[in-house]
């Protein structure tokens, strides 16, 4: 660090001390409070405005969508649009949402548990070949999902399980990155002494996992499950490849089918937009309510 040789470079007057909880207030050479916060607001506007646009667009019918200013409310058609979305093809949209919810929750809860168990074993047990097995997990982390989707389809068609829910439910259980995260969490949250004490008291390894290890790792489990949920909810290529039956589709593929209809038939456009809005609401709510968890997950994933 060569900071000691620096001459004074501060150009602006020290900014007023922010009333933060941070102990040391560092006054800015990066321009004023104004510049920094203005840039932050600009960045956030870029992130937020497309979603806001989606909301405004969902209040319009086809004519207003093309005819009125983007961020103005048109003839209020919001509820009409919602009804149209819900009634199309005898409630197909709700079916898609339920499918998405089922696939994602299944992957999150069961797949998360499988990952947590494996990560816990890698952290707490000693066995031969541990490093090699963990190496295999890491290779799994590095293989792009989309590169395995077609091979999975090819294999699934051998077993005749394409176009069934198993073609989705089995792959969504596989989460190598979850194993990696779980190992980090197990090391951080579950002290070896506690397990040793349980062992001395006569608890077997399975019992001590379910009654001690798992409860202690609960925040990690929730985090892994949350990311798994989002991953499955957002997955597009796997269901696109595996499923043909509209009754089985998740909402991501369903909406893309409507988008296909909307090219020749513009009256589908408001439904695509409103359906998109409805389909992101569960995830938005989950993220807002579970802030603590995704932040900790991102930390654990990057620091180690």
């Amino acid at each position, binding site marked *: 660090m060569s900071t000691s040789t*620096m001459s004074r*470079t501060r150009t602006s007057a020290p900014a007023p001390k922010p009333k933060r909880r*941070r102990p040391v207030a560092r006054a800015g050479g990066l321009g004023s409070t104004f510049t920094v916060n203005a840039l932050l607001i600009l960045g956030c506007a870029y992130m937020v405005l497309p979603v806001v646009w989606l909301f405004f667009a969902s209040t319009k019918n086809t004519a207003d969508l093309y005819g009125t200013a983007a961020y103005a409310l048109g003839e209020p058609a919001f509820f009409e649009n919602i009804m149209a979305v819900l009634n199309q093809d005898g409630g197909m949209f709700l079916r898609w949402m339920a499918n998405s919810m089922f696939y994602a929750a299944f992957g999150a809860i069961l797949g998360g548990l499988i990952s947590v168990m494996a990560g816990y074993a890698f952290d707490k047990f000693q*066995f031969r070949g541990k490093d090699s*097995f963990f190496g295999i997990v890491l290779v799994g982390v590095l*293989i792009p999902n989309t*590169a395995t989707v077609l091979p999975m389809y090819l294999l699934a068609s051998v077993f005749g399980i394409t176009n069934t829910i198993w073609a989705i439910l089995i792959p969504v259980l*596989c989460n190598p990155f979850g*194993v990696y995260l779980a190992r980090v969490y197990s090391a951080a949250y579950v002290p070896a002494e506690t397990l040793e004490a349980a062992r001395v008291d006569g608890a077997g390894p399975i019992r001590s996992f379910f009654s001690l290890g798992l409860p202690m790792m609960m925040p990690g489990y929730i985090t892994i499950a949350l990311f798994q949920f989002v991953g499955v909810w957002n997955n597009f290529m796997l269901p696109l490849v595996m499923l043909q039956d509209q009754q089985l589709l998740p909402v991501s593929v369903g909406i893309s089918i409507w988008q296909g209809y909307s090219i020749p038939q513009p009256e589908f456009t408001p439904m695509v937009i409103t359906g998109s809005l409805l389909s992101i609401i569960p995830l938005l709510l989950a993220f807002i309510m579970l802030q603590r968890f995704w932040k900790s997950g991102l930390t654990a994933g990057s620091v180690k």
Partner: protein
Amino acid sequence: MVTQAPTKPSIAGQPKIRTQRKARAMSGTGGRTAALFLTPFFTIFALAMVAPVIYAIVLSFFAQQKSGLGFGEAKTSFVGLENYLQVLQSESFVGGIGRLALYCLLYIPCMVGGALAFALLMDAAVARARKLFQLLVFLPHAVPGVIAALIWAYLYTPGVSPIVSALETGGISLNFLDNQMILPSIVNIAVWEWTGYNVIVLFTALQAVPREILEAARVDGAGEIRAAISIKLPLILPALSVIMLFTVIGTLQLFTEPSIISKATASVTSTWVPNMWAYDAAFNRHNLNQAAAASIIIALMAAVLSWAVTRFSSRNKA
């Protein structure tokens, strides 16, 4: 973080820990128990990753040949590496790789640079309302790729888009969906989806920078920018290299956004990127063997790239 050079997981198979009983130190922490905990994961892993990849490798060495006029049974015969040669000689596949490379060149600096700048701004002493900014910047990550692509497809479409009409009133007419603009337009979608996620990763790393060091630098007269470049940046390099690794792997997955956009414009062909090429081979050209070969090539590219990134970043750290 990752030290193993990625190799093909073809030898993984079932976990055989069960037989390795000798290694146990005390009862309940040894191989048998570990096998109990690891079997579910490795069974799924074998079913959902190893077996499909092996099967795809096998398929990629065969080809279906229709006899005579195309009626009758198709014959399957061993053709060695011919499928790979055909894929690699296909102009559209190679074009897709070129496009993907161009996409990386544009996307990685924009996204990582943007995330770094935003995280540093958020970490600056004078930044306000950090919690709110974190939540807002993370918002796009809660939007599925399909929906993100749909939203932006509309935001690129003249007549619907507020952006296009704003530019037009400013006298600029720009078609986001034409041949020149389509690549930057798709890069923008990916930047929108992933910047916030990485801002949070980098910001958390920045928060872990010891405040005493920054205070010392401040006493020595370093301004905020100088402190950011000479102190914060080197200290968050590990987080930055993890981001690079996952970003590079992520770019090879590119499929959802161009597939959605391809319905809105003819600029995106059905074989625009390698993943779309493989999908097209399987479902439109019905050549499963070529699709298998293409998938294996994509997985190999991912292996080579992530090996390169880990090599590069571990050398940087040393």
